């Protein structure tokens, strides 16, 4: 599932149409004419600059700010919930307010936090588009926006999770959350075993983007150590 497109690997290299000599697909050049909305965006942007409402530097800085969002803040939120029961209670009751406590720029985001336990696993999808808590976990991966993930995650979620490497036990109840409207969702993964006594900063290193979407578990300590050694 994470690699849905035909990657070209495993095919005969060298004469594959649309692939480089190393077997990678060429990305199609964006040579078409501008669409209506692209022209509109450029026109509005240039007018805003011309009228002195925003500067070009401000626009560039805002794009950089959006591109630089990462899962780090989400991981810090999760790690604090693991170490402070009161914070976890606040996070589950009002996710946005608890995220602001950690310095998140929540803006319009209304956050619902769903907790994984030994009996319940949660996973997030947006079947209609690609709603995603960007302020906490960065930009959504391409697969999250792909039609295959969006359609299959409500239809055969266990199969999709297995393709991500997560095989849920028979005794585990799966809850899929379709993010269709005003709420955004963050999965609070279960704290891995063998992390007793760890502080929040160390625990945050076990919390991946995928664990907060729900297509993975938080890393086990040995798994994180192996990844760090690579």
């Amino acid at each position: 599932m994470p690699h849905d497109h035909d990657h070209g690997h495993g095919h005969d290299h060298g004469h594959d149409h649309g692939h480089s000599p190393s077997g990678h697909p060429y990305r199609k050049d964006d040579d078409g004419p501008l669409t209506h909305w692209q022209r509109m965006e450029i026109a509005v942007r240039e007018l805003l600059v011309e009228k002195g409402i925003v500067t070009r530097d401000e626009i560039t800085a805002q794009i950089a700010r959006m591109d630089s969002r990462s899962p780090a803040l989400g991981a810090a939120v999760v790690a604090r919930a693991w170490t402070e029961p009161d914070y976890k209670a606040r996070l589950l009751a009002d996710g946005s307010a608890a995220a602001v406590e950690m310095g998140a720029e929540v803006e319009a985001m209304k956050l619902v936090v769903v907790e994984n336990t030994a009996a319940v696993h949660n996973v997030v999808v947006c079947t209609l588009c690609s709603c995603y808590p960007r302020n906490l976990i960065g930009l959504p991966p391409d697969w999250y926006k792909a039609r295959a993930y969006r359609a299959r995650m409500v239809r055969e979620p266990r199969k999709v999770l297995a393709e991500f490497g997560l095989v849920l036990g028979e005794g585990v109840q799966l809850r899929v959350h379709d993010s269709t409207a005003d709420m955004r969702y963050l999965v609070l993964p279960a704290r891995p075993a063998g992390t007793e006594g760890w502080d929040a900063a160390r625990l945050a290193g076990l919390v991946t983007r995928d664990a907060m979407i729900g297509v993975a578990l938080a890393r086990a300590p040995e798994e994180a150590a192996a990844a760090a050694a690579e």
Partner: protein
Amino acid sequence: MSDTPERLPAVEPPAFPPPYPTAGGRFAPGAAVRVKTGAAPGHIRTPWYLRGRTGRVERICGDFHNPEELAYHRPGTPAVVLYRVRFSMSELWGPEAERPGDTVDVEIYEHWLEDATDAA
């Protein structure tokens, strides 16, 4: 869990009030509700796969401006109550459900829901 799950899934009573203001809706958490089958044009936030399906209100999220109107530069008022409704996989996909007792929680605005006490 049971091998023959209910068509309507269980929901736990909410442990906390909705964090966003609400005047209170027609349906309380736990209520059985059916998604309307209409095919309205425009910016609809109710996915097709839910039309005509029955679930239970999991929680009230709060009152929000109607996105079907906001999308066309209308004010979207009065605000409508937004619910999270839980559906069982067996209700959504019938005998083809991957695992009947798994669930999907979806946000749905009140004007897309009707009372389904008859199904409870």
